[in-house]
């Protein structure tokens, strides 16, 4: 995929894709974080009528991604469903589309804080998943572990400043030992990588792999204002 950025983590050669997914060519493994499916209808329950197309929009991108990469394995890093009732609220078309995606690959749902029991959508369910040198989990572990962690949860975004203007973008946060994926869901907002909750997890020399206009840009943390 053009605009993608390769990097290595614990000896695994990975690729940050411009739409926010992580690709591991050697394993033909695709990871996506924080889909937050049915976030729109979750707000609608509270009578905030966000456009009811967020699940369809997220599935559009997932389908295109899976068609392009033909992965052997997909890992959804948790918070795939916005709340415990989200699967019940899925429209019939979206339910069928999601089932088709899950059926044609080896799909693992990692449990997240929004969806502690993501059962019922096919595929496997796990708290974490180890593949070779890497471990996939929803939220990065706070204790000091060997390198090789892939997680989501924080929805990292970064802000660049310069010449009196600023721009922000979703990003991967990568410190050589772990990588935190950006949220993939259409309505998932972002947390600035400099926020203490995220910054304390990362080593001092972390980099962001920012998603801007169809490309992934590697930027040192020191460059962020």
């Amino acid at each position, binding site marked *: 995929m053009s605009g993608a*950025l*390769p*990097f*290595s*983590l*614990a*000896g695994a*050669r990975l690729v940050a894709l411009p739409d926010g997914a992580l690709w591991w060519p050697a394993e033909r493994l695709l990871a996506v974080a924080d889909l937050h499916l049915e976030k729109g*209808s979750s707000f*609608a*329950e509270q*009578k*905030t*009528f*966000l*456009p*009811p*197309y*967020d699940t*369809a*929009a997220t599935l559009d991108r997932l389908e295109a991604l899976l068609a392009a990469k033909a992965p052997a394995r997909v890992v959804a890093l948790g918070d795939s469903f916005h709340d415990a009732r989200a699967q019940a609220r899925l*429209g019939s078309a979206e339910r069928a589309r999601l089932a088709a995606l899950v059926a044609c690959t080896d799909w693992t749902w990692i449990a997240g804080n929004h969806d502690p029991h993501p059962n019922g959508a096919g595929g496997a369910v796990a708290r974490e998943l180890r593949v070779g040198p890497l471990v996939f989990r929803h939220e990065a572990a706070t204790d000091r572990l060997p*390198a090789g962690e892939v997680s989501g949860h924080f929805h990292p975004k970064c*802000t*660049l*400043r*310069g*010449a*009196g*203007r*600023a*721009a922000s*973008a979703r990003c991967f946060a*990568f*410190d*050589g*030992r772990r990588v935190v994926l950006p949220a993939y869901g*259409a*309505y*998932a*907002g*972002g947390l600035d990588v400099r926020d203490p909750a995220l910054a304390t997890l990362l080593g001092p020399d972390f*980099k962001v792999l*920012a998603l*801007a*206009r169809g*490309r992934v*840009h*590697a*930027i*040192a943390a020191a*460059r962020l*204002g």
Partner: protein
Amino acid sequence: MGVAAVLPPRFAQWFGARGWAPHPHQIEILASRAKALLLVAPTGGGKTLAGFLPSLVELADGAHRGLHTLYVSPLKALAVDIRRNLERPVEEMGLPVRIEARTGDTPAARRARQRRDPPHILLTTPESLALLLSYEDSASLFAGLARVVVDEVHALAGTKRGDLLALGLARLAALAPMAGRIGLSATVADEAALQRWLSFDGRGGNAVVLKAGGTRKAEIAILKANARVPWAGHMALYAMPEIYDAIRGARTALVFVNTRPQAELVFQELWRINEDNLPIAVHHGSLAVEQRRKVEAAMAKGALRAVVATSSLDLGIDWGAVDLVIQVGAPKGASRLVQRIGRSNHRFDEPSRALLVPGNRFEFLECRAAMDAVAAGELDGAGNHPGGLDVLAQHLWGRACARPFRADEFFAEVRRAAPYAKLARADFDDVLSFVATGGYALRAYDRFKRLVRGEDGAYALAAPADARRYRMNLGVIVDAPMIKVRLGRGRVLGEVEEHFIQGLVPGDSFVFAGRTLIYEEMHETDAICRAGRAEEPRVPAYMGGRLPLTTELARRVRGLLAEPSAWRRLSPEVAEWLRIQRWRSVMPPKDGLLVETFPRGAKHFLVAYCFEGRNAHQTLGMLLTRRMERAGLRPTGFVATDYVLGIWGTRPARDVAALFEEDMLGDDLEAWLAESSLLRRTFRNVAVIAGLIERRHPGKEKTRRQVTFGSDLIYDVLRKHEPDHVLLRATRQDAARGLTDVRRLADFLARVQGRIVHRALDRISPLAVPVLLEIGRESVHGAAIDELFEAAAEDLAAEAMDGAGQGALL
């Protein structure tokens, strides 16, 4: 009709005791039987008292119980000020009349009491009226209402607040069918539009216009400075010594500027040369409320010699002692200039005195044109526009909060508000459906209804708690996300746009609240700063702080350029500038378009003298650069001022007429608009006003930062999946006349077809100098964000290549 026939003795005696005679229009208004009456009078014409005289006369016998008169003004401060001014005649005549103000600042306990036990005269704002109308008891509160007085109609009609108020008035007419309307307005070009706005059928029926006699004379001059009028810039710093002298020669001067950055800089410069330590203050909308109130109080006491102010001081408040108005920067419109000038010598018999200080040579032309327009009594049109569908959505939700309604009756009521007189039933139904369930084609939310339909067919609020959410989010003013500016951990100086703070790195300096601050860090939602000194501090930029030049004034500027015999009335350096332009190139034609092309350095420039205002020029710049790109002309940037658009690239443009063909408003416009951040910002405002995005939610305060981020995501999804949703229609409708000014651009392109004069020059023309000087001052649109990321990424390339550590970028 004789005075004695309509003015009761008690009132006649009061006028007599003060040595006053009632103005003729004050008598006429008493005698009038019109149900809706628009009083058009210059500032200081006793307009306010005229508006209230019928009420005071009717209330004099003490027989009326409950609310008699509702007064609505666009400014909270005005409501408070009017109460002070009204209480004097009421006390002096011993009238049994209770007058109270009710605004967002009124304590909750008093507001509750006002609904139980209303005063005779209630002074309020459009938002507070909407709030009152949303209560179930609104029908009984307003049942006995006899009069509605709307102040500053000219400032409300044509805005979203005007839309909201027009809908509120239509509602009041249904609750209190007997209540008459009096509108008070400054002199405007299009009285008929205001007449329609005030009328009971939204079409001008039964509305009478009463014009107060005698326009006030104004002595207006352009300030003569020792230094030459500069080529570019807006700050007029060259004229500071003369401005200071003018202040010294006046009792109290109001120094009006166009933008908040200008207010900060002019204030600083004046203090730099303030040898006599004159009490000079600054006033603008971003300063902390307490600071503004302090300045206003000092002004009212006559303790100040000058206030540097933006339009935050524009409206109605009576500063008796002001004897000089200084307008720094271009006036932008004749009506605006007239209203600002009206702030000086607030008495009928004395002429207003005003000095205009152009910031640059084009502004000099604009000042001259504005003086001609004022002398000729020509004003700018407010222009009619259809009311916002987002405002209608808010009103409809409020309507449901008060009590159930039937769609047919409510539709008829809404159409009696002038901005909605031509509202299509389909649009109304879409808004209704939006409020009820979101109104999406995919009817996914039908089970989460906000409105339910009863057996009788009436729509009602599904849950009473929703009324609270409506009340917490009411209002049509949506501020850009703001950040508090805090001095250390101490006091808050005011607010600046988040966008500006995001562009700062710790250690950067900027000017705010009249001082130089060093930015230190963000602490939660506050920007922590310390006082400091700096050679060249930045000045906060504010979105939308600049009004575009009006169409009428632009026509006069073009007329002035095309008429060399009129150049004598310009300053020598400005006249010389135009003479050399005529010699080296040609003057822009009065009704056509001059386009110059010339090489400079390695670049080829195209300068178009459109005079359609900055917003329309920005849009034109985006569209032209797309078209030039396709033609292989490789444009690399453009800059837009109020007068001129300049584009540069690596190849010269030859077929200029083809570039300006009208069809650019088709697909290119659609494609650009969809991606444009202007449309995103407009969508955010529409979504907030319509209630899709809540500013406040019971129990939790959503930070505005989250709102900003969320609206972009929603916009992207909605645009892709339901591009014709009512909120996107409302967004496009807003954008056409707001930040993109597409409507004006369309009129312009139609006007100049077949009248484009192209001059291919071998070097820059005198008239093109100002716009080229703006390059670099104005950020160039479009690729800026890409550049930011790519520049940062490039820097990193070397570092990325070193491959150190166990995880490395390959």
